[in-house]
């Protein structure tokens, strides 16, 4: 017993190390937020200070008053919501039969979905530009929604089929004994059992669309630009306007961070799973 030197000391050291590590990891983002709260003149002062000398919301006012940016946030939201709805509508029925009616065609189909996850965005974006041009959908919300859905569907498929795999096949059979059709069992019996699976899949589709950059860069030019595109333009056009830029970045990322902190467990679960299957 006595040969183990005080375990409390070791524990304190580990806890302290964890504290330092975690705090330094969060530091860059804290600095972004603290910069966005500085008066514009202080943002570029030399040498830079970590905390604002005086808190000001001027950068946020500038961002909200900048032509195009509030509009871009609206576009981003609309595109992400429509992408989420469309990809769930397409992916959930396919995931259901892939999990509960395993046959050769569903296995081939899931494999195909897996392969599409390997396609680099640029390899899909180059021909999609031509497709959207032919369809007259360049620089439209619909065009961007279709492009985002093309990458959201495979992810939603793989996630949802994993959730459906937890459903015993007997449940579906029992429902059909009671007079449900196959489709009725799916809609009325099984789907209501998986609100959390649907919510997580929806969340992942939403955030993937919200964060997407390359398709938006290729496929939009004037009317349907999304927030990341306008922020990137801010970056190159105003080059040195760091104050408003940090404020825009905070507005764009804070909702995502809050959701992540609230649903951390489910998100890590989904990502771990996405990693294993993706």
């Amino acid at each position, binding site marked *: 017993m006595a040969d183990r030197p005080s375990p409390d000391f070791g524990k304190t050291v*580990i*806890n302290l*190390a*964890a*504290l330092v590590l*975690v705090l330094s*990891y969060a530091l*860059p*983002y804290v*600095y*972004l937020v603290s*910069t966005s709260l500085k008066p514009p003149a202080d943002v570029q*002062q*030399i*040498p*830079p200070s970590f905390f604002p000398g005086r808190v000001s919301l001027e950068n946020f006012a500038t961002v909200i008053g900048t032509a195009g940016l509030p509009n871009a946030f609206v576009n981003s939201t609309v595109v992400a919501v429509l992408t989420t709805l469309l990809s769930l509508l397409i*992916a959930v029925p*396919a995931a259901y*039969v892939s999990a509960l*009616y395993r046959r050769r065609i*569903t296995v081939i*189909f899931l494999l195909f*979905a897996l*392969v*599409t996850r*390997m*396609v*680099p*965005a*640029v*390899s*899909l974006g*180059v*021909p*999609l*530009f031509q*497709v959207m041009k032919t369809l007259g959908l360049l620089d439209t919300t619909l065009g961007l929604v279709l492009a985002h*859905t093309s990458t959201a*569907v*495979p992810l939603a498929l793989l996630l949802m089929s994993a959730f459906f795999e937890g459903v015993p096949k007997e449940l579906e059979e029992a429902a059909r004994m009671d007079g449900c*059709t196959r*489709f009725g069992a799916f809609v009325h019996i099984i789907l209501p059992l998986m609100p959390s699976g649907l919510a997580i899949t929806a969340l992942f589709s939403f*955030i993937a669309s919200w*964060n997407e*950059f*390359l398709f938006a860069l290729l496929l939009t030019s004037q009317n349907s630009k999304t927030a990341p595109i306008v922020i990137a333009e801010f*970056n190159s056009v105003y080059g040195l306007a*760091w104050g408003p*830029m*940090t404020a825009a*970045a905070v507005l*764009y990322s804070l909702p995502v*961070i809050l959701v992540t902190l609230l649903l*951390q467990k489910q*998100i*890590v679960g989904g*990502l*771990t799973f996405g*990693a294993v299957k*993706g």
Partner: protein
Amino acid sequence: MSERRFVLLMLAPAVLFLGLLVAYPVALLVYNSFFEVELINPSARVWVGLANYADALTSKRILETALRTLQYSAFALCFEFIFGFGAALLFSAISGKSNWHRTIFALPLMISPIVAGLLWRFLLVGDIGILNYGLSALGIIPNPKAINWLSDPDIVIYSVAFADIWLTTSFVALVSYAGLTNIPKDLLEAARIDGANALKRFWHVTLPLMRPVIAVVVIVRGIDALKTFDLIWIQTQGGPRQASEVFSMNIYQRMVRYGDLGEASASATLFLAFMIVLAAFAYWKIWRTDNG
């Protein structure tokens, strides 16, 4: 309704959609790669066979870009893995119910690469980048202007990776942590009773059991890093000159700036083929064998 018909009906929307918006565009990409064709007028095209591929494989700029993409990915992956796995080990060493460190660590998990890139550009840029002030205050560099992270062509490809490392270390850490918690406690306890010290337990018990998780993390992150576009785009747009131009960016530039749809398509096809081969190889070699 017959079972067969039901399955086909439920699959149909997804098959149609992916066929129209993934399979057809990819076929179009491959088709375009055999033509000399401009973006502005894709209907005027001249069949050139494999000439675009020959050009791509002999172009110095493209080969440099490919090599740079590998450099970038290897650098980013290496540090993400060391930091992420280290953090996971630390988290699992802290027993008890408290999980606030993991909560804070999850913070960047879903942040857009655009925000990470913008943030790190701000930390590194010119004379207001706070990182250099920090380093010079600690005496690591002589003055705040000693390192030009984003404008020195010799180091820029590594500097732009900092944002990637910061952004995805949390993914590596939390996935590794989930893997570590799945290791049976009695296995480690048995090894301890047999007299294995912490290092030996790590090397002979933890690491072999973690192999599948490590394989998955390396594959997923490796493929993501090879595909990187936005994170570097927002920091340097590939500059100075082409010193931080990666493969995706080169394809984008040739398509949008030079309008050369044929050549861009040939490179994009090669890129796609490389990714699929890499993923298939990784899947069969590492994942399969580990799952038995």
